[in-house]
C-alpha cells in the first residue's frame, strides 16, 4: 500500500509537516514495489506461455486454458493452507496424504454409508481440520520440529487412507452434488454477471479504503495507483470470463478456488489473526513478548492447513469421479509446497501472500500442461519443474539481498 512519510526533525523538537513531492517515477515504483515478486512471477508466466504457444498453438486456446484452470484447483487449494504454514516458517508434509484421506472420507460416507453429500464434504473437511489441529498441537506443545510431526503424519494418514478405502482400493463417486463441484460450468450470461459483481465489489473495496485514508489525512490524495490497480484487475476478470465463455463457461471449481484465495488473503492481510501469523513467522520471541499466544496461532495455522488439504482432496475426488489408493500421493505434496515458493512466499517465514498459492499453481500447472501437450515424458516434466523451482528461489534470494543492501544503505 502507499507509504506515509514521517516528519523528520533530527535534533530539534519542532516537527514541521512537509509533504514530499511525488514525481512520476516514484509513483510507478510505488505501484510495482508492493507486488514486485508477483510482477516477476507474472512475467515468468508470460514467458512460459509464449514458449509453449510457439511450440503448440493449442496451448493458449480457450479450451486448454479452461482445462489448465481445472487442473490447478486441487493443488491451488492445498497451497492456500501451505502459505499459512510457510508464513510461520514451518512446513506441513502431511497435506498430500490428508487431501487423499479427506477425499476418501467424503466418498466412503457418501457412497457406502449414504450420507448427504454436503454432510460428507463437511465431515471430510472436519477430518482435515482435526488432523491439522492435532499435528499443530504436537508440534507446538512438545516443540518437535513440524517437519518430523508432519512426516509422521504423512505415513499415518496414508495408512488411514488405505484403511478407509478397504478391500476395493478404489471407489467411484456418482453423486451429482459432489461431482458438480468440478464439473459445473456457468452459462455465458451468468459468467458476465459474475464478472460485473466481482469488478464492482473490488471497486467498492478500493474506493472505501482510499476514502478512509484520505479522510484521515494519510498518504497522498493521488488516486492514480488505485485506479491503475482497479483497471488491471478489471481487465484480468473480463479477459478470464471471455476465455471461459469461449469454451465451456466459467467453472464452479475456479470460483471455489478464487473464493478461498481471496478469503484467506483477506484473513492474513487485514485481520488481527493474520497479523499475528506474520509476527510469529518473523520472530516468535517478539510475538510472545508482545502478548500473542504463539502456540494458539501455530495450532490454528496447522488446522487451516489440514482443512485446506481436505478441501483440495474433495475437489480432486470430484474432478476424477473417484478416490483410490494413490489419491493425494505422487508429487502432489511437493508441488503444493513448491507453488507458493516459486511465486515468492518465503520458506523461512514472515513473507508472502495467499495469491502466491494461485500464481504458483498456475506456473506449475502451465509447465505440466504444456509439456503434456507437447507429449513430453514424465522424467522431463519433473526435471523442468525442478529447474523452475530452483530458478525461482534463486531469483528471490538475489532480490532479497539487493533489497536488504539498499534498505540499509
Amino acid at each position, binding site marked *: 500500500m502507499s507509504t*506515509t*512519510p*514521517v516528519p523528520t526533525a533530527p535534533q530539534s*523538537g519542532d516537527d514541521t509537516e512537509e509533504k514530499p513531492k511525488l514525481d512520476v517515477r516514484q509513483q510507478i515504483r510505488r505501484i510495482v514495489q508492493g507486488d514486485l515478486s508477483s510482477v516477476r512471477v507474472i512475467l515468468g508466466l508470460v514467458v512460459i506461455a509464449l514458449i509453449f504457444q510457439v511450440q503448440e498453438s493449442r496451448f493458449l486456446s480457450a479450451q486448454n486454458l479452461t482445462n489448465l484452470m481445472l487442473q490447478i484447483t486441487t493443488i491451488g487449494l492445498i497451497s492456500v493452507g501451505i502459505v499459512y504454514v510457510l508464513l510461520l516458517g514451518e512446513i506441513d508434509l502431511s497435506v498430500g496424504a490428508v487431501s487423499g484421506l479427506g477425499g476418501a472420507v467424503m466418498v466412503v460416507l457418501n457412497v457406502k454409508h449414504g450420507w448427504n453429500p454436503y454432510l460428507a464434504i463437511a465431515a471430510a473437511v472436519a477430518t482435515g481440520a482435526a488432523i491439522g489441529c492435532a499435528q499443530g498441537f504436537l508440534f507446538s506443545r512438545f516443540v518437535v520440529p513440524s517437519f518430523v510431526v508432519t512426516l509422521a503424519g504423512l505415513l499415518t494418514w496414508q495408512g488411514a487412507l488405505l484403511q478407509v478405502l478397504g478391500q476395493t482400493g478404489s471407489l467411484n463417486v456418482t453423486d451429482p452434488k459432489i461431482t458438480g463441484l468440478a464439473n459445473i460450468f456457468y452459462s455465458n450470461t451468468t459468467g458476465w454477471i459474475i464478472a460485473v459483481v466481482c469488478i464492482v465489489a473490488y471497486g467498492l473495496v478500493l474506493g472505501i479504503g482510499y476514502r478512509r485514508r484520505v479522510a484521515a489525512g494519510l498518504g497522498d490524495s493521488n488516486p492514480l495507483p488505485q485506479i491503475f490497480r482497479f483497471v488491471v484487475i478489471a481487465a484480468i476478470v473480463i479477459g478470464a470470463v471471455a476465455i471461459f465463455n469461449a469454451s465451456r463457461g466459467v467453472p464452479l471449481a475456479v470460483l471455489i478456488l478464487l473464493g478461498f484465495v481471496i478469503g484467506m488473503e483477506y484473513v492474513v492481510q487485514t*485481520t488481527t489473526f493474520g*497479523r499475528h501469523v*506474520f*509476527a510469529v513467522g518473523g*520472530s516468535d520471541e517478539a510475538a510472545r513478548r*508482545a502478548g500473542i499466544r504463539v502456540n494458539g496461532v501455530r495450532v490454528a495455522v496447522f488446522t487451516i492447513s489440514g482443512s485446506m488439504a481436505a478441501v483440495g482432496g474433495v475437489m480432486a475426488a470430484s474432478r476424477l469421479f473417484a478416490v483410490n489408493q494413490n489419491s493425494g500421493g505422487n508429487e502432489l505434496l511437493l508441488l503444493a509446497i513448491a507453488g507458493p515458493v516459486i511465486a515468492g512466499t518465503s520458506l523461512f517465514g514472515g513473507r508472502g501472500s495467499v495469491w502466491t498459492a494461485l500464481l504458483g499453481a498456475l506456473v506449475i500447472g502451465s509447465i505440466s500442461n504444456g509439456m503434456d501437450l507437447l507429449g513430453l515424458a514424465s522424467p522431463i516434466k519433473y526435471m523442468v519443474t525442478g529447474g523452475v523451482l530452483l530458478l525461482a528461489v534463486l531469483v528471490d534470494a538475489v532480490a532479497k539481498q539487493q533489497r536488504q543492501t539498499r534498505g540499509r544503505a
Partner: protein
Amino acid sequence: MSPDQPLLQLEGISKHFGPVHALDRVDFAVSAGEVVGLVGDNGAGKSTLVKVIAGINSADSGTIRYEGEEVSIHKPQDATNLGIATVYQDLALCDNLDVVANLFLGSEERLGGPGVLTRQLDEVDMENRAGDLLSNLAVTIPSLRSEVGTLSGGQRQQVAVARSLLGEPKVVMLDEPTAALGVPQTKQVLGLIKRLRERGLGVVVISHNLVDVFEVCDRIFVLRLGRASGDFAATEVTEEHVVAAITGLGNNAGARAEVAEEKAEAADGGAEGEKA
C-alpha cells in the same frame, strides 16, 4: 503523593539464585522526569534489578513502592499494569513487519462494524496514532510503512522505545540502548531519552558506556557484586569516581565523600554506599 517523592522506590531488595547473592539489600529509586543510569560490571546485578522491577523475577525480600503505595510485582503483566515498561537489549521487534505493525503488535486497533467478526485491523487509526507518537518524539525513520528489518540500529531502538510508550507508562527501563550503535545513531537515541524526560517519565538506563551515561543521566546508580556501591548526581561526580565504584578498586573514599554530600537527596543510596 508529594512532589519530591520518587515515582518508583525499592527498599532492601534481595534476590538469591541458590548460593549467589544477585542482589543484596539494594535501595533504588527513580522520580518523574528523572533519568537514572544503572551501571556496574558484568554480574553486578543490573539485569537482576531490572528483572525484579519488570516482574520477570520476584525479589526474595524487600519492598517496592510505586507512587508511594506498596505494590507487589510477580509477573510482567503486573509491571505493565502499574505503568512500568521495559525495552530489552534484543528489542523484540519483528523484522518482517513495518513500523506501524511493530508498534501495535499484540495490542492492535480493530475496526468497528462488520469487521468485528473477523477482528479486522484498523490500519488507518494505527497509522495515525503511530504518526502522532513518532513525530511527538521526533523519531527519525524513513516511513511508517518501512519494514523494521531495513532500519538502522538506532532507528530500531527508537521504534522499540516508542512502542513501550503506547501503554502510557510512567517508568521506562532501557537495557543497553546504545550498545553497538554508531555515533550519530547513539546521538539520536540519547536525544529520544531526553525527550522522555521532558515528557515527565522516569527513565532507567542500563549502560556500560559511561560517556553516554554522563551525557543523558541525572543520577548514576552503581551496583557492585549485588550491592549498591554508589549513587551520584551526574553533574557532581567525575568518571573516575564512578569507575572506582564499579570496580571497587582505587580510592573509594572519594565516592563515599560524594555520597555523604548527597545524603539529603539520596539517603537510601548513601547508606548502601557506606556499607560497601
